[in-house]
């Protein structure tokens, strides 16, 4: 009996099916037409045709953030591949598992500046976890299997696979073999924390008088929120989340003290500054958190748990480093606490909470809504009420992102989807589309600004084609608000190029794309019109809310200061 032979294109499709892929996001072009032809002839997974390859990467990214699965992108060589760069970098910075399959000119033409040739592996090298130049038909299945394994394991991240046209075409066939249980001698990410380090960590935690748990995106990526919650409750410790970690501990949990960092709550930043032990879990001491590293928590013992050794002692020196997968390490810590029969020392704990509650009483995350213009924060609160706090909220980048983070407490992980590390405007809408595909029965909100939404607005067309009824809410301040805020605070109020004089009529635009548009201009119509927007099923609704353009995001760390040097309001220091 002859073993069947397959083309490279068929192998790509077979491998993706073998890896349980449900959706891939892409855009066709010359070098990948054989793959498109193979996709046409199967129904294991669906291909979503975007309107711009950048959006394909963000859709795959949003899909991955909401589900935990690897997001898959397919792009043609040259411009198709380079259009993916921003999305790859976005995924890289936030550790999102993604596989980008890129076409390439035939191997015989590589290096000749052939039509639509770019060295995509070279272009993307600094922003990928790994990449492959696949050169043989028979290698395709295992290269793809490896790409998935690398993307998802250890610290997740994007992987690029370059596929030259001549290994995809019908003339070139080979046997199909795939090993989905990947083993690599050069890559074996750690799993368990070192027992000695666990003991040291537990000792520090149990001896602490003023402990803070600082948890980040790693908790969300590892689906470790239940274990985190268990630890927080066992220790009765205050817990703060980074922007990426929101939902890791429920936003309404009594031990949650808000987000920390640049626009974090006063109580979170104060608790960090005054802690004697900081337990960092899957967080990377980003400069938007630490403020001036020289002034960062000089008196705290820092226990840092992370799967990636480069995250540890990169910006802030860790006294007790623990390398391991956070879910496993948390279980180790909990077991160790159980074994020692630990009970928190009530007296210092009570004093610590008293202190924290005093900072809480300042209500640093608050705003004033008078009769005038709609405050953006008010819009977020209204959405929270209408959706019972259960929606997926996908954000773009700017003031609206911070308002969403501050005023929409997330009780579950993977519900808050935003670009933190790269801060990519244009992320919100395509990410929301990816989420809606995965969870068609949930409310999926894209909260955005008049600037950001225009960076991928063409995807309204994709939404119609695939029936993706997300709710887009634009906090329209007729300006690049976040930039304008910095110009107000640092550049003497000179609004250089932060004002947009030609914003389109978003309602008409939405209608032109076949969707529903709703305009909200006054406070008295805000709640009812938002209700209406969320009650419409099966149609995309674009809500354009005219908000106060003068509103700034507070609280805000004072540049070059310590973690808790903050403006709580315009001109008011903590």
């Amino acid at each position, binding site marked *: 009996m002859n073993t069947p032979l397959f083309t490279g294109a068929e192998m790509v499709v077979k491998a993706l099916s073998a890896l349980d892929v449900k959706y891939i996001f892409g855009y066709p072009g010359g070098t990948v037409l054989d793959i498109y032809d193979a996709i046409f002839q199967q129904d294991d997974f669906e291909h979503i045709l975007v309107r711009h390859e950048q959006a394909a990467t963000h859709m795959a990214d949003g899909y991955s953030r909401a589900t935990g699965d690897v997001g898959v992108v397919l792009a043609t060589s040259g411009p198709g591949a380079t259009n993916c760069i921003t999305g790859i970098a976005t995924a890289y910075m936030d550790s999102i598992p993604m596989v980008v399959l890129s076409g390439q000119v035939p191997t015989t033409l590589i290096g000749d500046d052939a039509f639509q040739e770019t060295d995509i*592996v*070279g272009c993307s090298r600094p922003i990928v976890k790994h990449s492959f130049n696949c050169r043989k038909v028979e290698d395709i299945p295992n290269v793809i299997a490896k790409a998935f394994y690398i993307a998802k394991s250890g610290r997740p991240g994007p992987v690029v696979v370059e596929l030259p046209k001549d290994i995809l075409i019908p003339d070139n066939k080979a046997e199909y073999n795939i090993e989905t249980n990947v083993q690599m001698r050069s890559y074996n990410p750690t799993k368990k924390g070192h027992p000695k380090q666990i003991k040291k960590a537990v000792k520090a935690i149990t001896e602490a008088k003023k402990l803070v748990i600082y948890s980040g995106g790693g908790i969300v990526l590892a689906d470790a929120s239940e274990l985190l919650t268990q630890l927080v409750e066992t220790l009765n410790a205050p817990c703060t989340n980074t922007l990426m970690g929101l939902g890791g501990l429920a936003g309404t949990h009594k031990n949650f003290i808000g987000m920390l960092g640049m626009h974090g709550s006063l109580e979170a930043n104060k608790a960090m500054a005054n802690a004697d032990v900081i337990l960092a879990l899957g967080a990377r001491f980003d400069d938007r958190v630490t403020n001036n590293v020289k002034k960062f928590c000089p008196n705290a013992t820092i226990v840092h748990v992370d799967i990636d050794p480069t995250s540890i002692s*990169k910006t802030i020196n860790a006294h007790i480093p623990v390398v391991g997968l956070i879910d496993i390490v948390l279980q180790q810590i909990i077991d160790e606490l159980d074994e020692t029969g630990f009970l928190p020392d009530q007296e210092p704990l009570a004093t610590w909470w008293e202190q924290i509650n005093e900072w809480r009483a300042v209500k640093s995350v608050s705003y004033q809504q008078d009769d005038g213009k709609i405050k953006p924060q008010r819009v977020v609160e209204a959405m929270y009420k209408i959706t019972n706090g259960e929606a997926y909220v996908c954000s773009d980048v700017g003031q609206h992102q911070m308002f969403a983070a501050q005023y929409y407490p997330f009780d579950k992980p993977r519900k808050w989807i935003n670009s933190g590390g790269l801060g990519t405007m244009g992320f919100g809408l395509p990410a929301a589309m990816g989420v809606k595909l995965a969870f068609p029965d949930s409310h999926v909100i894209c909260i955005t600004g008049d600037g950001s939404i225009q960076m991928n607005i063409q995807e309204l067309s994709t939404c119609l084609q695939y029936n993706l009824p997300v709710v887009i809410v634009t906090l329209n301040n007729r300006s690049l608000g976040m930039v304008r805020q910095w110009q107000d605070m640092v550049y003497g109020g000179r609004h250089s190029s932060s004002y947009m004089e030609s914003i389109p009529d978003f309602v008409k635009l939405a209608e032109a794309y076949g969707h529903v548009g709703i305009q909200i201009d006054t406070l008295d119509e805000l709640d009812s019109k938002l209700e209406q927007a969320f009650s419409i099923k099966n149609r995309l609704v674009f809500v354009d809310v005219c908000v106060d353009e003068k509103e700034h995001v507070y609280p805000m760390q004072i540049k070059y200061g310590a973690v808790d040097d903050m403006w709580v309001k315009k001109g008011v220091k903590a």
Partner: protein
Amino acid sequence: MRRILAILLENEPGSLSRIVGLFSQRAFNIESLTVAPTEDESLSRITIATKGDDKVLEQIVKQVNKLIDVIKITDLTERSHVERELILIKVLAMNDKSRTEVKRITDIFRGSIIDIGKQVYTIQLTGDADKLNAFVKTLANETEIIESVRSGCVGIARGEKALRV
């Protein structure tokens, strides 16, 4: 502080560019870099001489280790090791006096003259960086250096310790 790092990695297309890219992307210094396949053709070995304080070095080692192709990295300068570099140097040797002098210096440094032209000698010398520097300086005092090439250093740990799969 000067450090010598030995790296064992998969001999795959692109693996060298990942190392070089990493150093420039993260503003790590490269004083010299040598690379060649090992006796097992599927592996490459790189020696990098670099400079940095302990904090920088820790990041370099961790970042290199994080590359998927890299199997192992070690800082040879942490313990006793042997370090060698090769120089090929072409100098002017026009008359008897300079020829004798060049030959004498070469002998003292235990180098060898490997090629002779009408007016030039080409010399080969191995040693650590200090020795090579001293040799070049001494030659330069005596005659004109026309051209030189250095291999960059390679290193290996002393004793039983080994960098292998």
